[in-house]
């Protein structure tokens, strides 16, 4: 995979998270309807994005450092196994995040965004990009090669860049959808149009894990 394709993929994964009603924009729309102003949606997107970012960052940074420290093959297989296990868990046991409370402040919305992203395994999807690029940049099977990964500093800054691109995709798409739904579309379409992306997502995780195993 070429570098630009990797960045594009990371960006579109962010968009994929962003358009999922369960990952933030619907909460922003709910608050906008409650306060009867679109600015409430934009205001809510700030902590929601922060929560998403923190959740993804936790996994990406930990994985980056682990990938730097440990033998590459081991990390690679461990990451693949985690993806498959989490995907299967999501398929079998669809527990939604237990949350009650609509009138929450900045901290509450951040926590909500963090929990939702974690529960959906948002950060896990970036794993192949992280561990793929570690330590042995010349291995032909690596999905990604980036300069500077030979050092801890390099691993971390590559991770930060990945998270940033991903989060940009998330916040742009989620805010756009929130405003569009609030101003134009309304929420009626949800009852027929809300495809269970979590189910698709779980399958995607398993598939990614399998591909990672085979490469």
């Amino acid at each position, binding site marked *: 995979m070429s570098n630009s394709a990797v960045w594009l993929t990371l960006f579109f994964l962010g968009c994929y998270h962003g358009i999922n009603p369960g990952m933030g924009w619907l909460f922003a729309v709910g608050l906008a309807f409650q306060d009867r102003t679109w600015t409430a949606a934009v205001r809510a997107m700030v902590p929601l994005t922060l929560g998403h970012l923190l959740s993804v960052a936790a996994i990406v940074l930990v994985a980056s450092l682990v990938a730097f420290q440990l033998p590459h093959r081991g990390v690679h297989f461990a990451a693949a196994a985690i993806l498959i296990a989490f995907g299967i868990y999501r398929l079998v046991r669809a527990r939604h995040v237990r*949350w009650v409370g609509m009138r929450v402040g900045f901290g509450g919305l951040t926590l909500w965004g963090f929990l939702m992203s974690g529960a959906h395994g948002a950060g896990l999807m970036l794993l192949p990009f992280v561990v793929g690029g570690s330590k042995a940049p010349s291995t032909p099977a690596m999905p990604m090669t980036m300069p500077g990964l030979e050092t801890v500093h390099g691993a971390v800054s590559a991770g930060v860049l990945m998270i940033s691109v991903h989060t940009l995709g998330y916040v742009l798409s989620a805010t756009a959808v929130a405003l569009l739904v609030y101003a134009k579309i309304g929420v009626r379409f949800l009852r027929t149009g809300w495809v269970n992306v979590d189910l698709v997502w779980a399958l995607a995780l398993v598939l990614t894990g399998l591909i990672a195993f085979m490469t």
Partner: protein
Amino acid sequence: MQLLKPDPTFYASPRDAIKAPPETLAYVALLSARGNGAPDRLTVVDTDSTSHRYGREIGGVALPNTGDELHHFGWNACSAALCPFAPHPHVERRYLIVPGLRSSRIHVIDTKPDPARPRIVRVIEPEEIIKRTGYSRPHTVHCGPDAIYVSALGNAAGDGPGGIFMLDCDTFDIIGPWEKERGPQFLAYDFWWHLTHDVMVTSEWGTPKMIESGLDPELLLAGKYGHHLHFWDLKNRRHAQSVDLGAEQQMVLELRPSHDPHNEWGFAGVVVSLKDLSSSIWLWHRQNAQWTATKVIEIPAEPADPQQLPDLLKGFAAVPPLLSDIDLSVDDRYLYASCWGTGEMRQYDVSDPFNPKHVGSVRIGGIVRRTPHPADPDRPLAGGPQMVEISRDGRRVYFTNSLYRAWDDQFYPDGVGNWLVKLNVARDGTISFDEKFFAEFDPAYRVHQVRLQGGDASSDSYCFS
């Protein structure tokens, strides 16, 4: 099982829900008329007006034990699953959570694959509920954003406090009691919420000991039954404020908040006033951050010949309306009020909730009047309008006639009978009996709550206007 699309019976807003298709069947709680006779039964009644079995039983399921005393029940999931802070709409509205009010046993009943042949898939025994929650006598069931909430009248010994406990919405395991801090709340009965404002509201009847052997006139005249509304912080599970309606306002039962999530008001029904035996309906609302309740409807007692009255009422020479249930249409336009004593179903236009207008009325049964149903105009009926349920589109109103076994026997000592009837609501709001819908059941049973297929006016909460 996860669905690929949201359950088609979930609606984001009340405005969408009123467009729901008409229900083709209703689930009805049948309780043994003599306590330890036959096991209770959840029955299924055909409500499809084009069916040749319209208004008749088409299936059902008997409970495994006797003495449960079915009362209220509710769905495992509802439109609250579309709430933006707890989105999980790819679950099914499928299981009915059916408590036995006397036994404290909870039944989980599967309405699929054949909705006319529900099956019991789990029984939670009373010991389990008491062990995990400290509560007994489960009553109201509501599907919440994070769990199934159930109110309970008291503790294992039959005393207070009553409260609320939670069931896991996937496994139906008991999670535990809901309250973190109950403040002065002691008596319990009904509850509902303003979900988008993080507010729960609870009402008060009496402890199990105060009700299970009948209405106690001494306690009543001393004003010992419930007369408060309680407002709670739903998110932090803490008591926030009590509103005392006055000790003469005895038994604050059903709570019907506005379905529109913008609003912070709702109606609460009071069974009887010690001053004049009237019933009343109160509007709760928030004023300068404080909850307050205003009496907006008063229904007077009707003078009666003591000879026609049961012992409990002879001294008063009047029949009280005994308002036992109220129900608010999904569009927040009409409030229905069951006058179980006088045998009247009233309809109020509550477009302005502070100034309800009494716009419709039908008579059936009643302690004194014994008004027949138009389908059988020569036969006097016992019991009166009681548990009332409104279809989502507001065009059909169903109600049954038994209140609570021990209390039925006091107010209708010669037998309360069992019937389920239906009103049609014309486009202009006019109500009239559906003469083709007059269901009577096996005399071994009495009949309590009705739940309509796909949801009804007291089953779902909405987070969008």
